[in-house]
């Protein structure tokens, strides 16, 4: 090889990128001293800057899951309907009729705080690529968002930017954003959460994987050109925030949904031929992680000529090319001889198509630039030797059970209900949802709170007498429960998700999870991670909803303050006939029945409830306990009742308790209800803590159903030993009466519900 001095004349920065690294370079890239020494030892040389950059990306928390791996391995991932569990671009489950649902959730928290529009837009773009890389056409988008306190001025800016960004990408690429959750808490003031989920549909026997095959096969780069945006994004996503984090704006990627759309169509068109052997999207750590993962999964090697990579800017170095996180790019291994045919498809869609190297059997990643070897690394240490830490942890849980009488108040039931619907965590998110195109593709049945889960029809499964199958999707987590008791909180997130799927009429099938936590080097944070994974595992295995994909986001803290632990559960379920799905809105002359609610009422669970926050301004009691047997029973019975077409609507009882849920069911048609009370509450007044705990307690495993077939339903419930409480029959009065105790105007509460978020966002007229 020619002397490196010649390289100095060609490109000075490339010359620098090929110089030997020092420990300080490693520290700057987020590696520890021990990790640097381990790298030098394993590769038997001192890495150059490019090689070190590749290691730092692969060893980042984002790519290696080094702090959480030990515990992630304990998650239940198998079931007869699982086609592909964690480890690929997305999870895949069998949904019958030779079809598979492909889905995953992923965080884009740090970039979205720094640059809300691009951060959230590329979060959506990235998760869509994960899904169509597997050969699936994306059919629905969901999200789980957490923002800081509504009265913090920055919150409005972040909500506005993130919502625009999510809509900006999803609306433009033409995939419906059908729902999600948005919550506010001061713990997210300096570190918002933006978790995006995508669900796609594929033929069961046409799933594409990432493992490279066949030495000598061509390695093809397709999609957008590589620029200098997002360099070292994976490393940024794995560090704590400080006040200077906005200086990292250049490490935020820029989204181009139109190119994303072209890439989606071109890839799916190519996948219809037999040309693609394996494929991987360039997400976090770009060309580095895609090439390393493809080659290592196939136990092979890869040679790439970086001069052939399409670039947007001049004189990009090997370091920049390997670590750029430019969006809308893919790496593929093609069947030899099919390059011409493949190229013609990408030409048609006006996308770059470059043959940049070949698969080898050397077990090494060898990169050349300007004729010089820019990188020569064994693949094994990059993947196998990524550290796995067993960090010390302590699972702290509040055990103190609060009694209703512990919460004394001078607020009436109406006062409390008004406060609940003025809380942006409960109030209608219509202002946000209207900015998402939820009906594009024409298959959306329920979006954005019409039902407990969002529901999309599966195009092409129509039968003579039916609209066909549907997929139900939800995202759920109640962080205050997780904070108070990580194990219960983890279980609750799974159970609520399953209840939501069942309340839409669909059968819960599988989970993708997004584990958002603070700094794992802190014992209590590590305890939150371990505890919630334990809880998720227990509930997911009991309910037979395995985890098939997921993402971990750690170091969500700012200046040492951690976010509330937020292990978001994204769940997918299926329904055979979409016309049999359930909305939340009751109709006139429906009887409302609370399932899982005993006639023999003792006390409602007030600890850690929204109600407790209103009365005490804090949460200091144990969260509601989870009884998995009851959860399963309520899910199974609702599916059974619905199969017999006995239900009009269903809505699970969660934040804000029974009365909040009843109100939400009455809103749409402005209905009224003379609500029955348990006999021991009839003589209470509106201030009575026991009555208030019945109204607002957050006991789990409860769903309210609306039916026109009260006799049959009662019979089935009794036959199956289900606790239930008949709440009464809806009427057209628009008044919710609690005996002689109080009368609630549904109009008034509905109005509050719809005005809360618009007025928070400074948009009074909306609604």
């Amino acid at each position: 090889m020619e002397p490196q001095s010649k390289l100095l004349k060609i490109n000075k920065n490339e010359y620098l990128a090929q110089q030997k690294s020092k420990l300080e370079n490693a520290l700057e890239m987020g590696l520890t001293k021990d990790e640097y020494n381990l790298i030098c030892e394993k590769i038997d040389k001192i890495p150059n800057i490019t090689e070190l950059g590749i290691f730092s990306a692969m060893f980042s928390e984002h790519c290696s899951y080094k702090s959480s791996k030990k515990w992630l391995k304990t998650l239940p991932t198998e079931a007869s309907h699982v086609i592909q569990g964690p480890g690929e671009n997305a999870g895949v489950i069998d949904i019958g009729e030779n079809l598979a649902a492909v889905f995953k959730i992923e965080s884009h928290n740090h970039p979205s705080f720094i640059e809300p529009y691009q951060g959230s837009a590329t979060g959506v773009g990235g998760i869509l690529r994960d899904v169509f890389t597997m050969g699936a056409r994306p059919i629905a988008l969901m999200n789980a968002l957490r923002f800081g306190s509504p009265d913090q001025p920055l919150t409005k800016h972040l909500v506005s930017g993130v919502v625009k960004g999510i809509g900006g990408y999803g609306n433009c690429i033409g995939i419906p954003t059908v729902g999600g959750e948005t919550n506010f808490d001061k713990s997210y003031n300096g570190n918002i959460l933006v978790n995006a989920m995508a669900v796609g549909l594929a033929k069961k026997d046409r799933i594409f994987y990432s493992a490279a095959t066949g030495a000598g096969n061509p390695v093809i780069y397709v999609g957008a050109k590589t620029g200098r945006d997002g360099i070292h994004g994976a490393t940024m996503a794995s560090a704590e925030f400080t006040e200077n984090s906005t200086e990292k704006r250049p490490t935020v990627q820029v989204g181009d949904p139109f190119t994303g759309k072209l890439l989606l169509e071109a890839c799916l068109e190519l996948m219809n031929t037999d040309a693609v052997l394996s494929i991987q999207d360039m997400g976090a750590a770009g060309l580095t992680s895609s090439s390393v993962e493809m080659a290592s999964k196939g136990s092979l090697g890869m040679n790439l000529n970086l001069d052939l990579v399409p670039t947007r800017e001049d004189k990009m170095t090997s370091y920049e090319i390997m670590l750029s996180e430019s969006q809308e790019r893919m790496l593929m291994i093609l069947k030899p001889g099919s390059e011409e045919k493949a190229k013609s498809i990408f030409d048609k869609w006006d996308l770059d198509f470059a043959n940049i190297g070949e698969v080898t059997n050397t077990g090494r990643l060898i990169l050349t630039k300007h004729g010089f070897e820019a990188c020569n690394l064994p693949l094994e240490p990059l993947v196998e030797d990524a550290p796995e830490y067993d960090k010390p942890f302590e699972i702290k849980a509040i055990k103190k059970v609060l009694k209703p009488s512990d919460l004394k108040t001078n607020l009436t039931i109406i006062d409390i209900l008004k406060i609940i619907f003025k809380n942006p965590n409960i109030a209608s998110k219509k202002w946000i949802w209207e900015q998402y195109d939820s009906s594009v593709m024409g298959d959306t049945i329920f979006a954005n709170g019409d039902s407990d889960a969002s529901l999309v029809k599966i195009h092409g499964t129509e039968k003579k007498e039916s609209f066909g199958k549907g997929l139900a999707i939800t995202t759920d987590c109640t962080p205050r429960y997780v904070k108070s008791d990580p194990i219960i909180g983890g279980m609750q997130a799974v159970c609520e998700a399953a209840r939501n799927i069942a309340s839409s009429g669909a059968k819960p099938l599988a989970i993708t999870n997004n584990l958002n936590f603070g700094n794992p080097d802190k014992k209590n944070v590590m305890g939150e991670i371990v505890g919630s994974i334990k809880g998720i595992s227990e509930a997911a295995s009991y309910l037979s909803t395995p985890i098939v994909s997921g993402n971990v986001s750690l170091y969500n803290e700012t200046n040492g303050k951690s976010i509330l632990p937020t292990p978001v559960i994204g769940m997918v379920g299926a329904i055979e006939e979409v016309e049999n799905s359930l909305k939340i809105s009751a109709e006139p002359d429906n009887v409302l029945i609370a399932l899982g609610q005993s006639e023999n009422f003792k006390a409602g669970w007030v600890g850690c409830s929204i109600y407790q926050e209103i009365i005490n301004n804090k949460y200091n009691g144990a969260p509601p306990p989870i009884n998995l047997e009851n959860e399963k029973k309520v899910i199974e019975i609702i599916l059974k009742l619905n199969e017999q077409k006995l239900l009009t609507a269903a809505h699970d009882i969660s934040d804000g308790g029974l009365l909040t849920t009843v109100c939400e069911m009455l809103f749409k048609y402005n209905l009224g209800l003379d609500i029955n009370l348990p006999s021991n509450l009839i003589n209470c007044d509106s201030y009575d803590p026991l009555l208030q705990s019945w109204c607002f307690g957050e006991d789990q495993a409860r769903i309210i159903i609306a039916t026109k077939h009260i006799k049959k339903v009662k019979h089935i419930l009794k036959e199956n030993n289900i606790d239930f409480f008949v709440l009464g029959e809806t009427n057209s009065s628009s008044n919710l009466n609690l005996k002689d105790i109080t009368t609630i105007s549904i109009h008034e509460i509905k109005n509050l519900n719809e005005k809360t978020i618009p007025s928070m966002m400074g948009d009074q007229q909306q609604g």
Partner: protein
Amino acid sequence: MIVAIRKITGKTPIKIWHKEYDIPNLDLIVIPGGFTFGDYLRCGALAARSPVITSIKNHIGRGGTVLGVCNGFQILIEAKILPGSLIRNKKLLFTCRETTLEVQSCIENPFLSGLKIGECLKIPVAHNEGNYFAPEDLLKQLKEEGRIALKYIKQKDNEENYNPNGSTEDIAGILSKNGKVLGMMPHPERAMNYLHGGTDGLKFLTNCVEQIIG
């Protein structure tokens, strides 16, 4: 839109690639919604300069019929096939929701002639730039020539946001001078069955097809 047309006609419509110059003689050309070229410039501005627009203009010149929906309407405006402009929604926010449209009294055209004047249709919108703007003289001309086809309409007297984008005089769709080209912001193909929340889109498109093809 393809699914909707297929449902009504029982035939799969021909798709035309944006780079094509030659198109066969067609009963109806539909320019559907979407984000052509990402709409990073003004919506429809780049698409209006696609090769296929020349052929569409020729089709119109031969007296052919064209329906532009959402981005299709924006393209027809940018291509100067229909007059006026579509600017950002008044609230500067993308809006996706159901709207109620009222069929206006207008010149003879194949899109509405089977429907009653004053008839209401519930059809959703989903757009960021649907605020139809026409200067006063153009507005006067459109009225005189009977070219205002669809308007957003209140269902209740006190309804504030019945017009989703702040368009001039609540205009949702306009016709060409000869009545053979209709541009509209709402998406009829998204109101095709009761699971969509209504079938007024089906009614509208079925009427179009019947009037045009017979």
